[in-house]
């Protein structure tokens, strides 16, 4: 099976890769580009651990094929910091102990960032439904939801 040559933008930089038609975007990120921050928990789009934004839209990278990426742009957890400064969500997750094992954390952060870009002032219920596609088995979501809502308030206050 011959591989496809793809040119895409990953975290703001032009990349080229070869991928076979069965490889998902997640496979490409992890195995071809060595960006292992996005995690595979299910490969069926149910757990959200592989969340990335594709042309600005939140998606599960396990549900996108590597060959679909021609000319498109993806942002992953590896590009969430602003230089050496953690994104306010990253900082809040640390302070609020909103992670335990940390496996779902990259997906939650990517998804929460997309939430706050869409809705800077979410209610608790809106945050819970937005993040319902991200599974966490350690925290019971309490500290994650609080961290997201507090970050939203901080970011609104900072503007």
């Amino acid at each position, binding site marked *: 099976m011959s591989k496809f040559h793809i040119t895409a933008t990953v975290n703001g930089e032009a990349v080229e890769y070869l991928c076979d038609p069965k490889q998902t975007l997640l496979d490409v990120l992890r195995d071809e580009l060595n960006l292992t921050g996005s*995690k595979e928990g299910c490969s069926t789009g149910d757990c959200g651990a592989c969340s990335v934004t594709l042309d600005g839209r939140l998606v599960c990278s396990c549900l996108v094929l590597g060959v679909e990426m021609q000319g498109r742009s993806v942002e992953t957890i590896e590009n969430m910091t602003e230089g050496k400064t953690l994104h306010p969500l990253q900082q809040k997750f640390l302070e609020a102990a909103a992670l335990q094992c940390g496996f779902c954390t990259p997906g939650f952060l990517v998804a929460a960032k997309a939430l706050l870009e869409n809705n800077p002032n979410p209610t608790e219920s809106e945050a819970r*439904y937005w993040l319902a596609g991200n599974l966490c088995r350690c925290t019971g979501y*309490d500290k994650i939801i609080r961290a997201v809502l507090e970050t939203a308030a901080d970011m609104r206050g900072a503007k």
Partner: protein
Amino acid sequence: MAGYEGKQFKWVGTRPVRPDGVDKVTGRANYGADINLAGQLTGRILRSPHAHAKILSIDTSKAEKLAGVKAVITAKDFPAMHNGVLPGDEGVNFHYLSSNIMARGKVLYDGHAVAAVAATSAAIAEEALALIDVKYEVLPHVIDVDESMQPGAPLLHEDIFTTGVNPKPEKPSNVVQRIQMALGDANAAFKDADIVVERSFKTKAVHQGYIEPHAVVAEWSEDGQCRVWCSSQGHFMVRAMTARLLKMEVAQVRVMPMEIGGGFGGKTIVFIEPTAVLLARKAERPVRVVMSRDEVFRATGPAPGTSIDVKIGAKKDGTLVAATGEFRYQAGAFPGSPVGPACMAAFGPYALANLQVVGYEAVTNRPLCYSYRAPGAPLASFAVESIIDEISQKLNIDPMEIRIKNGSKEGTQMVYGPKLKAVGNLECLKAIQNHPINKIPLGPNQGRGLAAGFWFNLGGQSSAVVNIAEDGTATIMTGSPDIGGSRASMAQMAAEVLGIDYAKVRPIVGDTSAVGFCEITHGSRVTFATGMAIIEAAESVVKQCRERVAKMWEVDVDSVIWEDGHARPAPGSTADNQKPLSLAQIAAKASRTGGPLVGSAAINAGGAGPAFGVHICDVEVDPETGGVTVLRYVAAQDAGKAIHPSYVEGQIQGGVAQGIGWALNEEYIYGADGRMQNSGFLDYRIPVASDLPMIDTLILEVPNPGHPFGVRGVGEVPIVPPLGAIANAIARATGARLFDLPMSPPKILAAIDAKK
């Protein structure tokens, strides 16, 4: 160890950012599947499509010829193991363990591994699996524990003869063991009861549901040394079991602990690690094996389904006079069900003079039933707490009063042997009693449920090293995988003893060749036992510092005290004129005072303090659909001493969420063909963020006399009460009590309809 009573802690009890935190919010932290070695192959496992079948033949020749396939293995490649438990094997039957990892002769469940391949790509590995020709003779299967225990049930093993029964059976059966524990004479004491409630319960198997699938990378070098990178709850366990199963020397295997993406008991035994090691040896290349989610559900170690009878008798005033319980727990295809701990923990929250518990374990055609957070206890607790609640309703006594009246406390005789030392059961009950949730009025179709839970907690073997660098900063190392913040608590305890800043302590989880043996991260033992090793190692550093300073000052060691990270002259001692020396100053002179400052400790910690938790929740039941919404949830727990309260809260909240899922919707669903029908997160639905409310926590601190800081394990007991608390809330909301888990909408509707 003592000397910390009444001490004002500087770091213990605070909430610093965890040392491994930045790596985990930036995607930098490496888990098992993140390793990518040069020349690494992809390993895949062929699994049985049958619940029970004889393997007539396995033909791997076509797969072996496929370009890109570098190794194919079957059970023939695994050494034969002794069928039994040998001294020193910690109760493990390695024949069974090996046969679970790769089926020998028979497949015993849907998903049982029969062969494995390593290939240059995932696509080729999968193509190779399809080329392996396995001929089966399908046998009758049994999924349910009650059916498995019947005479004439399909027999899984020819060599299981029920233990604990008299006379010893002459024929093999699926019943592995019968166990019994008793206090007083329960059956005679029921005559003193004014009310006796007896009920039968059924529950379904559930999975731990960690988000990270099992993952391992294995590599051999030409000198016969083997390296393994994997996520597990104990890399020393992986080393020991792999070496034993493959007849290697233990030190020949070096296991690197990767970050672990959740375990909850499910990563306390090997499933794929020896397979990856064998593939790597045969292929002469590194091999990575990562389970799919489907494989995780079908072929790891979920918690058992059960069948339970509980009978409790009480006086009119609510005094409990007698209780009996019979707990029938599924094992999976091999023995290992946690029915023993279930029997020990079932009635833990109650002081009962007359109690009899009986447990049975029976093998079934399902994946190995193994540990899940407080193994066995939540199911037993669900039954007991449901009946306590029913008694309180029938006697018209407040459900809190009946629990306080009969609550176990210091001095209570436990059915499994010891009397309780200082514990926090009554403190938790009273904290919930005084919580404002009790004043919130309930609306129509709403109910409030209460339940208590108990777990004994473990201690065990741990090692730790505290290395002081030349500038007085510290790296501390243990062999306990950090599953939810234990690096932070280790660093806090070390900082406390050394008297230096938390930020100057860097905690590391060392590999099996870098640090002394540590038992697995389970049984709520790490902060307690490994923490004790850290305290001891740090105390050793302090002692060495005092000795060196005493030499420098030319005084005896008792003239030097340790305070706030400084050696100081003891008041009134001959060293009175000396200026205090900081750890950094002492470290700078280490080369001239005896060499590096290294403290180490290797302990087998006894004195684990039992944990109690009391939960209260409000639910609303939709009478049209039977759907349940959890409106409010409050959990109180005795932590002994919370080293990092945020992560104690996190343990409580996580356990509650898992318990809510267990109560309301999680279950293994099997078809008539014995195959699992919901082996994905879409159909096996764990709670998502929109399913849950905030989970309020109350941390009580009744110090554990067995730990220098008073620590008790906190990780497990939070999953014990939720099943009963939710069931009791539903019973009070609807007037209909459910005896089957999960309490899914169709069952709730049926129960409401039956009441009409």
